[in-house]
């Protein structure tokens, strides 16, 4: 459930981009930051290594505006995908409302995708969450490359939850907003259900 501040008339949802190292999580956030209406976004905060690998997270707040008197925000986070950063991933997942699982479509990245997907389940279960109860969208990224899996194969591999799937090339921005829009809408719909 999101943070609801009735006194300040604010409601904040947290959305986390998950996925293996180099799958394109940061690229998604950077594209959103570049293209979205500047009035709707805050500062992009990135905690990364010299080589621009995410060390802790990227953070971008988006304001939806005032909805029924409530200032509504989506806080977008990425996790560090490299497997040895799991402690940090668990911290970023705290209080999450919606998850985008970014999959690297390249055939060579099969094991990494599966490992990351299982790791997501583990981490959520450990914090008492369940993927089927959160908003969940799967983005098949890097569709521009050759030597990639078909969308069908990837769905069979990663979509046991029967969740929405989008196809993207985060580098050019194709599919990035479609993914974001899908997860935002799901998050909103789930809050409605909870009440």
């Amino acid at each position, binding site marked *: 459930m999101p943070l609801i501040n*009735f*006194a*300040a008339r604010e409601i904040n949802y947290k959305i986390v981009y998950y996925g293996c190292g180099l799958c394109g999580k940061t690229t998604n956030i950077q594209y959103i930051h570049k293209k979205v209406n500047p009035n709707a976004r805050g500062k992009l905060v990135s905690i990364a290594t010299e080589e621009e690998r995410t060390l802790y997270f990227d953070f971008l707040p988006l304001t939806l505006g005032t909805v029924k008197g409530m200032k509504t925000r989506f806080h977008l986070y990425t996790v560090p995908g490299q497997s040895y950063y799991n402690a940090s991933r668990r*911290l970023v997942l705290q209080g999450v409302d919606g998850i985008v699982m970014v999959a690297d479509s390249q055939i060579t990245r099969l094991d990494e995708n599966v490992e990351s997907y299982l790791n997501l389940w583990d981490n959520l279960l450990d914090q008492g*969450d369940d993927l089927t109860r959160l908003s969940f969208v799967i983005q098949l990224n890097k569709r521009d490359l050759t030597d990639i899996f078909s969308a069908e194969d990837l769905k069979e591999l990663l979509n046991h939850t029967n969740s929405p799937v989008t196809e993207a090339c985060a580098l050019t921005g194709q599919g990035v*907003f479609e993914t974001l829009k899908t997860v935002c809408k799901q998050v909103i719909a789930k809050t409605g259900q909870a009440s």
Partner: protein
Amino acid sequence: MVRRRGLVINDRQMQLVDDILDKLRQVSGSRFIALVSTSGQPITTSSVEAHPDTLSLASLAASSFAATQQLAEVLHEREFTLLFHEGRESNLHVAQVTDQVLLVITFGRETQVGKVRLYTNRAVEVLRPVFDSNDGDDQTNLMIDDDYSLLADEAIDDLFADME
């Protein structure tokens, strides 16, 4: 582990919190105090000057605190209850109020660490009970209804219209 609860703050709680923070700021001589959620979202602030970027601040303070707690675990320390950053002009502290709420406070360099601890501990003690009772759920049902969902859905369409 326990199932994550949402955090709901109502008018009564906010009034109490704002009063406590303002008082704390006056007695401690602090220039800036904020309450943020452990998941990195701002709840409220009390400050002398213009606010810093509170969204970034909340996110960074909460994650920095969370990282410190993990460090404690790795070092088999029971917990670090206070996170301390020393700056040239001011010191920043983050203290845990409840499992979902953190207190962020800056002090001038002249304030002794002992005093800082005293003030923050007292503040945490009076803040904690404010979040113990949660009577915000009725309000949630009232405000976050189908109408809200519908309007939010439209707002999302508007925000991302003409994208890609």
